[in-house]
């Protein structure tokens, strides 16, 4: 696979309890296993109590700061647009914004899988084989949730591109 030379910046944003941190953990682990340098940054603690939360995942050949500089977000996964669309003021030119509107959330077997469905949408833009995504997602959930999360991922991945 052709390694991207520049740094790609992904921000996942939502509210505490929506699985923002889980999604960024899955994504950063996958990118790491694919051979990239990866850094992931977030703030937890008080922000878990239903407040806004976001996590930065940066990958490329050599990542320095773990935090995405202003105006350099390439992909924004806005899991709770009412609040998380606020991050749009920091998008890079040509950035992609992914939100629950990109898939039919009513088809989710488990409403908590919005985070994984959003990763499914993101997967269309990153050159990583589908089976690698699915393998990595499974590593982060107990077996009884594997099927629901695989479905959620595929729902996002196979939804109509905007």
């Amino acid at each position: 696979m052709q390694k991207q030379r520049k740094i790609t910046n992904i921000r996942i944003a939502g509210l505490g309890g929506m699985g923002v941190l889980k999604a960024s953990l899955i994504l950063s682990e996958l990118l790491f296993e694919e051979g990239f340098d990866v850094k992931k940054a977030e703030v937890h603690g008080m922000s878990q109590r239903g407040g806004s939360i976001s996590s930065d995942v940066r990958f490329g050949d050599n990542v320095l700061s773990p935090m995405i500089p202003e105006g350099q977000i390439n992909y924004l996964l806005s899991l709770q647009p009412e609040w998380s669309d606020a991050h749009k003021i920091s998008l890079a030119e040509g950035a992609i914004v992914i939100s629950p509107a990109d898939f039919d959330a009513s088809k989710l077997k488990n409403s908590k899988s919005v985070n994984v469905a959003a990763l499914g949408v993101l997967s269309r833009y990153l050159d990583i084989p589908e089976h690698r995504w699915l393998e990595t997602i499974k590593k982060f959930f107990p077996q009884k949730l594997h099927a629901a999360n695989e479905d959620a991922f595929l729902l996002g991945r196979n939804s109509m591109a905007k």
Partner: protein
Amino acid sequence: MSNLMRKLLSGNEAVALAAKHAGCALGIGYPGTPSTEILENFSILGGSAEWAPNEKVAAEVALGAAFAGSSSLVTMKHVGFNVSQDLFFTASYSGVRGAMVAVVADDPGMASSQNEQDTRLLARAGGLPVLEPSDSQEAYDFTKLAFKLSRKFSIPFILRTTTRIAHSNTIVEYLDESQELPAADYHKDIASSVMVPGHAKPAHLKLRAKYAEMLAWNEKDGPNKTIPGDSRLGIISSGVAYMHAREAAPEAGFFKVGFSNPLPVGKIAEFAKNYDKCIVVEEGEPYMTELLRAAGIPNIAEREEVWRFDELNVDRVKAQLSGDTQYAPKIIKSKPPQLCQGCPHVFSFKPLVELGCIVAGDIGCYTLAAMKPISGMDMQICMGASIGMGIGLRKVLPEDKARKVVSVIGDSTFMHSGLTGLLEMVYNPPPTGHLVVVVDNSTTAMTGQQEHPGTGRKLDHTPAPHTVSIEEVAKAIGVKNVAVFNPVREAEAMKRYIEEKLAVNELTLVVSRQVCVLAAAARAKGK
């Protein structure tokens, strides 16, 4: 032969792994964001890990283990370091026979803290050496190094992390091998370990001699590095600020400090000679800036006041380097944190608000009750202060106001530092009496549901040999009225009881007990 491993780890996970590999016999601490996950991970890795009632006790236990020749780890957040400071300022005199490493996590920008103090200044005041990692790899390497140097120089070492080191994941390469250390044993050495003046005077001199040795070692072999660059600008940096600075000014020359107290001033002076101008990029206080300027290095720029506040990032470092003190980041609108749906704290504060109480509060999730719509807390400073502050208010306010004063403290905070407040209350009671409400959700909720002496479970959630009862402790100390209510199911009775006790000149402790909704869910899942 052990294999070279590669993993994506948080700074906290990396510290735990390094402690395991360094042969650390005991890890102990008190939960505090962003340091909490170190001991949880150390336990998962098979290390012996415990939550102590507070940071001072944790440091005492760690010091005892190090006196016996073992390697011990104590973890805390920056404000917890204050709680344990009494120990550290003299443990630097006594030194240790084994190794003791204290991980202190600073929170510049106050993501989840009440202040943004800089551990380097406190450590320097106490004569304690400090290592500062800039990513998870260094969190791993420097933790191992700290154990080694603590043994070499016979002194507790501080590893200063920050929120972005503790809670960022970066790649760590390591050899999967643990060091075997000699078994603990005790060798009598009264002169080194009993800090009466006759021993402490030579011990102070010994500390400064050790300090000079550590400085000489740091100047020669310390974990600091130089990256040559364009002679117009040299940057001196440490911690995650170094990463921001490398990204902000890739063309500049760098002196990266890994061992920041005692600071390798001589080596930095040599570096500075190669550059027209040098700027120190550091998070928190101008610690290195002032030391380097005081050392008379002529081309170290003074730091503008604005960089003392908040955490740094690439944009702010760019602004500092270009002298733009007016730089203001775009504000990303955010939803503030709030108490969970069904949180028992909401019910605990309801009667206090309805009765018009003046509430001296404390540290925990319930501090959020100070915010709208509850607005039910009037003051909050540090762990355990609610009881003392309440007593102080009661002692000077006119009677009608004094009667309204209530202290509110959580169960974990009560264990941490509420007991001494109760002693003050029974020893020097205010004329109008006093009323303490312990909002007991049976967990350390704020930091992620850690156990404490009152939960009946150890750090790994297995049963504890004894469960401390808050109400029995209060009775034993001598509080006259002690009652337990469920704030949800017994709301009316609890309100009536509080109202009644506020009217009389007696000492009362109400335990408002209902388990945290998140902890209840986690326990149902079997965590």
